[in-house]
């Protein structure tokens, strides 16, 4: 499965276009980490707990998108975009979408 955010793949031709696939997840961090983040708001600096949270969310969302693409028989997802939004304090939504396509097999 090729996942990319460009519209064409060098050296490969799109033979079928299967439409849009999406994946999303809403995640929250537990209260302990939220309290730590509160402290960080005094001293500044990177919130590693939240960076990790977003990373996990991103992987999860991408997995869901890939599962959807596989289910409809695609072998690549192109033109992938990410969108994030915060819903309430400590929770974040991550949405990923792209176009599922079938690519020609590479010339050997």
């Amino acid at each position, binding site marked *: 499965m*090729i*996942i*990319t*955010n*460009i*519209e*064409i*793949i*060098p*050296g490969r031709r799109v033979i079928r276009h299967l439409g849009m696939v999406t994946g999303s997840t809403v995640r929250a961090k537990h209260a302990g980490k939220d309290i730590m*983040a*509160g402290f*960080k*708001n*005094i*001293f*500044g*600096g*990177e*919130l590693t707990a*939240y*960076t990790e949270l*977003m*990373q996990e969310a*991103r992987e999860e969302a991408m997995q869901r998108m890939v599962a959807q693409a596989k289910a409809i028989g695609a072998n690549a997802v192109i033109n*992938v*975009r*990410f*969108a*994030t*939004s*915060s819903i309430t*304090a400590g929770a*974040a939504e991550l949405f990923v979408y792209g176009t599922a396509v079938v690519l020609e097999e*590479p010339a050997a």
Partner: protein
Amino acid sequence: MTQFDLIVFLALLSAGYVFGRYNEHRHFRSIQEREQAMRELLVFSERFPPPQEKPVDCVLVVGSCVVAFDYFKNFVAGLRNLFGGRLTSYETLLERARREALLRMKQEAADLGATMIVNVKIETSSISGESANQGGSVEVMAYGTALVPRQP
């Protein structure tokens, strides 16, 4: 406001100032070092990859960073809001987050052995605290397609 409140406020303000500046200084220095180290890897926001002579693999690479406002920056920005103008204290914060996110993306691409990254998009979102004066943090995500030369 009691005297105790004032002391707490001043303590938070100075802690924010001292640690915030120290953190920022250290962060910028590490960003600069790593940017120097990764100068070879080219990053473009172009939508289409340039014509390739050799076959390449396309891999999605992502980097993200969440940075918190410190108490001092928050306070200064609050004052600035009264008079208007550039919020320099937030500008440096966003710059830090953005450069860090780009660096992490580059690191991921470099680990794969990529020669360039095309179609880079940067997404910014703010993660706010419970109340307006509590401050918050900003998340920056950078993503693009790494072109990895295919091994024969």
